[in-house]
């Protein structure tokens, strides 16, 4: 059972402002979806190792710094004096 309060809390964790209407709708739909995912409980998996990445960390390429041509932050709308403006912290 997923309550409206739980959806509200998940919305907060995901930083999504939800309307009352959305909260009601998602509470119903996500209960249904998660109910389907519970199918995973109906099978014994104790003997099985989960899938893991094929590469070891030591096999990854070195994380070298390389020059980038172009403006990587061109898309930010609120720039001032070489800084990017964000919302206030407190």
């Amino acid at each position: 059972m997923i309550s409206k309060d739980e959806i509200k809390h998940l919305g907060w964790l995901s930083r999504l402002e939800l309307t009352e209407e959305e909260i009601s709708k998602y509470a119903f739909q996500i209960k249904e979806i998660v109910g389907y995912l519970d199918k995973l409980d109906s099978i014994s998996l104790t003997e099985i190792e989960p899938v893991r990445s094929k590469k070891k960390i030591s096999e990854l390429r070195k994380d070298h710094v390389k020059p980038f041509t172009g403006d990587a932050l061109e898309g930010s709308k609120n720039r001032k004096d070489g800084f990017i403006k964000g919302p206030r912290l407190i």
Partner: protein
Amino acid sequence: MVNLCSLTAEQIVKGIINGDFSAEEYISQILERIEKIDDKINAFIIVDSSGALEKARIIDKKVRNGEDEKDIGALAGVAVGIKDNICTRGLRTTCASKMLQDYVPPYDATVVKKLKDNGAIIVGKLNLDEFAMGSTTEFSMYGSTHNPWNIGYVPGGSSGGSAASVAASECALSLGSDTGGSVRCPASFCSIVGLKPTYGRVSRFGLISYANSLEQVGPMGKTVSDIVMVMNSISGMDNNDQTTLDSETPRYALRPKGNIRVGLLKELVEGAEPEISKCIYSAMDLFSKLDCKCQETSMKSIEYALASYYTIAMAESSSNLARYDNIRYGFDLSPDSYEWNAYFAKVRSNFGEEVKRRIIAGSYVLSSGYYGKYYLKAQKVRAMLKQEISLLLKTFDVLIGPTMPVLPFKVSEKIDDPLKMYMIDIDTVIANLTGIPAISVPAGFGKNLPIGLQIMAGEFQEQILFDAASLFESAANVHRSPEL
């Protein structure tokens, strides 16, 4: 002037190199066709007319100067459309989302760069379900794409624009991305060919992430031969994507040949609508007539595939989409006067309905105490599927079944029932969970709507997939071009 729009990529390259027509003539016809019919289909989000014409003139100049064919490129002059979740330098890449509505990437995805290096011409960006989450291309801020075979019907998704544009001859080739069937589903619904390559065969660098452990960029075209051409251009190791396989990529060829061991996955046929099952059984008969050894077989863990898939996809999406804070890229909403968390919650409420649903469900399965119940189990089911499929692929060279269990349906028909919508991905998610390659090839029609045959092979066995697909394609000879 003959109609050049309906030519395959192979025919276009030949025509341009031989001087039968110029790249500019061809691209002009393509742009006219988009202008004329895209109002009905809504496949394109952006058309780059001037950029495409400029590139066409460059190709023509190279041909006139008698440059070597290799230097002009294996895809010289071919009009290609790119799904709008794949980055194109200087060309807006929106993911059909308000959250990226003004995003202009400062770089090309590796696949785009490789296509350009091979002479392909990017004509525009194609519609999709927002962030590739959906199976119908209805969840787009640019509105639904329509199926060229019947515009009242969905084209499939999430690469609906990529499939519809090729089917409607608005471009010869396109790229899509396939996380749980997003290339193969629309290829099936629009009667074209679509491939999900083996995980690690094609670079994901510049593909905007949704569920990294599942997705691959995949080519879409009218024929298997065109898919082979694209794969020879885009495959291979990329230092910018450490999941690409670190070994030489084979050169794929078109060699339709019999003597293939074909296994028909019983569960997939039994779960499909009657017209589809009938069509897939006929496909198996056709393989038998073409000297292939066919047999029905079973894959028991299929029952758990969809629950495993949606757990992983939603978990990975909730984590991936955490990056959209509207600070580095986004729409215009000043952060002045907002508190930190309030601003993010406010701007992120502009994600569409399906994206929000998956972020919330993903946060749920990842929340404390639930990791072992959902994500870990889903990864174990994935291991189980992998074991079962690799056993099957010792007996068979390829596994076949329907690409989709349902025929294309009407726009808006399933949009209010998310779980019902998720269920139609049952046949396609297997290849994403196990990493194997899978292709959808036109197999026929039911109620005048397209049906796709899905063929799967072992990891990095794309060649055998092409062998089987081209053998079937030339014998089945299914109609590709709808009247519009």
